């Protein structure tokens, strides 16, 4: 029997399945791994005024803020994806998300319109000093929003801890949209993740992704939608224009890191294609037959329940 643990964090549910070994030890290791996620939640939660992220957001406009290795590593990765995706992924998108009414816990400021905040969005206004390991904003009003990457980063830290503690078979997912696998279930070659076709149509084929010592993430406009000016818009914005990314029903990324998969799935949804600079060890997945007229809710399902562990 597999050992299963779950927690609520980052506005979603994380589930961890561990197989092989003493179940008491597996549970203890699993708890430790999930603690990495709750710690990330506390540190990087934009909606918690006391989070480390908000401390950075408050101070980095005034002076360089020293960063610990983990935060620096995360922001450096974000900067790289921003560059490689030509700005399609941008963690300075917070003012735009706020203006669009996409921050679910925030009170929208009536005078904040997308056009008005565009000047406050752009990773070029963020200086990461690679020697001093500090961050500084070069323009007033910049605010980091790690909503499109923190889940993956937390999963990476948890996976790292699981491996350090000798775990050889595990699957961890956050909200069924970002997942990482260690090894495979007993008797199987991989953890098989099913992405149902966008319209749940019997004529279309579900996409199945095999995970074994790697990670994946999927982004979709329907992950969360709101009504804006009489139209339903998805929760992923193109940071370059402020427009909601609605062209594709979903985009997914598979690679060695859940953090990068998380960031790249957002970038791919915005771009609609694989950019040249996307790392070669990252795979881009798009729906084979996107029906652009009728986007319906679909979910990223794992086959955990069906797996014979």
């Amino acid at each position, binding site marked *: 029997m597999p050992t299963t643990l779950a927690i609520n964090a980052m506005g979603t549910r994380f589930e961890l399945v561990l197989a092989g070994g003493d179940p*008491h030890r597996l549970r203890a290791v699993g708890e430790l791994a999930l603690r990495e996620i709750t710690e990330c939640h506390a540190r990087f939660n934009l909606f918690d005024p*006391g989070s480390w992220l908000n*401390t950075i957001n408050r101070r980095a406009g005034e002076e360089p803020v020293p960063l610990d290795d983990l935060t620096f590593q995360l922001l450096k990765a974000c900067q790289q994806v921003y560059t490689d995706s030509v700005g399609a992924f941008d963690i300075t998108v917070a003012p735009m998300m706020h203006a669009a009414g996409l921050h679910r816990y925030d009170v929208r400021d009536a005078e904040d319109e997308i056009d008005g905040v565009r000047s406050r969005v752009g990773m070029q206004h963020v200086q990461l000093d690679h020697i001093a*390991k500090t961050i500084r904003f070069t323009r007033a009003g910049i605010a980091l929003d790690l909503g499109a990457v923190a889940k993956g980063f937390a999963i990476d830290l948890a996976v790292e801890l699981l491996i350090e503690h*000798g775990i050889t078979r595990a699957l961890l997912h956050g909200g069924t949209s970002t997942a990482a696998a260690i090894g495979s279930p007993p008797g199987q070659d991989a953890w098989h993740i099913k992405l149902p076709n966008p319209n749940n149509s019997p004529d279309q084929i579900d996409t199945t992704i095999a995970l074994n010592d790697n990670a994946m993430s999927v982004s979709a406009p329907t992950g969360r939608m709101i009504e804006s000016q009489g139209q339903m818009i998805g929760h992923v914005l193109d940071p370059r224009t402020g427009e909601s990314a609605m062209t594709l029903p979903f985009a997914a990324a598979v690679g060695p890191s859940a953090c990068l998969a998380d960031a790249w799935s957002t970038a791919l949804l915005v771009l609609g294609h694989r950019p040249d600079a996307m790392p070669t060890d990252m795979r881009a997945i798009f729906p084979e037959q996107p029906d652009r007229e009728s986007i319906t809710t679909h979910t990223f399902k794992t086959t955990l329940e069906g797996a014979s562990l």
Partner: protein
Amino acid sequence: MTETDRRTFLMQTGALAAVAMMPGIAFGADVELNGEVSVAIIGMGRQGRAIAGELQKIKGVKVAAICDVDPGRLRSGARRVAGVATFEAHKQLLDTAKDVTAVFIATPTHTHRAVMEDAVAAGKHVYCEAPLASTIEDCQAIAAAARGSSSICAAGLLARSNPIYKLARTFFRSDSVRDLVAMRAQSNEKTTWRNPSSDPAREKALNWRLDSELSTGLAGEMGTHQFDVFHYYRGKYPTSIQGHGSIQFHNDGRKVHDTISATLAFEDKSVLQYAATLGNSYEGTHEVFYGSNAAIRLAWTHGWLFKEADAPTQGWEVYANRQQFHNEEGITLIADATQLASQGKLESGVGLPNPPLYYGVGDFLKSVTENTPVVTSIQEGARATAIGILTHQAILTGETITVDPNLLGDA
């Protein structure tokens, strides 16, 4: 008086009443230090990392050194603190890190005494996590070490620094609660309390909380923090303790109870009912004071007042935020409610802006940088710890333990 006039009147008088009840409390404001301070953290387990996370947010604090005997924890801690020196032995840290003014002790409970005595001897100011010790003897030794030095020493009990607890205490001490009829507290968390290690040889040392020779059980590890809430509010300590414990869920060979209950009786016949479990998380950790006018429920980041129907209405209640709990309506205990309401921010401001630990370590560092008395003394920490240890003993023996008041006085 029109409705508008009445509301304005109540708003103004309510604001005045609130101000009068909380002199000097800037609710949940950022900690501001008078100058810079270089500190070290000894013990980089869960609590040490949490302390590091809160210190990182306070301007003027430099975490210069960290220490842990476990290489994995030390490595993990170093990744979370900018530019920090690492040590595997606390004496080495105390001898080497001369620029460190204050140390935070977050090692296993039974090792606090040795680290505390060495830190004080090295001339460092000390924040010692609670429970302070696993034996009464060590508790007294720690209190003696603090008394006999010129170092500023604080206990890691967080109620006295918590803005919500400070605010609620003003209500408790006013007519809002009236006659105290009962007290209750619980600590529920579904967790194993087991610490795995990548090195099997280290597992025994890391699992000191499950070692019946070393552990003070749930009563000591969790109860100590909550017992101090009742000491803080009432200025009274229990006089006798009864308890019961069992293993209800974690049948993994452990001997330390995963579920306990205890009754702590006071001289005035009032009683605190305490319960804790590692098998269920429902309603988490909280304390409740039941009075003839209202009950106060405190849950560390939130607090509520539940009024009796016949309790008098107070002006500030008009603008208070309320939360529904089944058939009960709780008035959220938060300062500056009228100001938050006028800004449309009451909903988002109903909880503590930072974790309670932030205010605890902040208060200690303010004492260090301003050379002022600490908010939570080692002596008060020793009293709460002693009650935690005695409760654990009552649970283990099944006997009623009479608390010797001299024991607490000497602590």
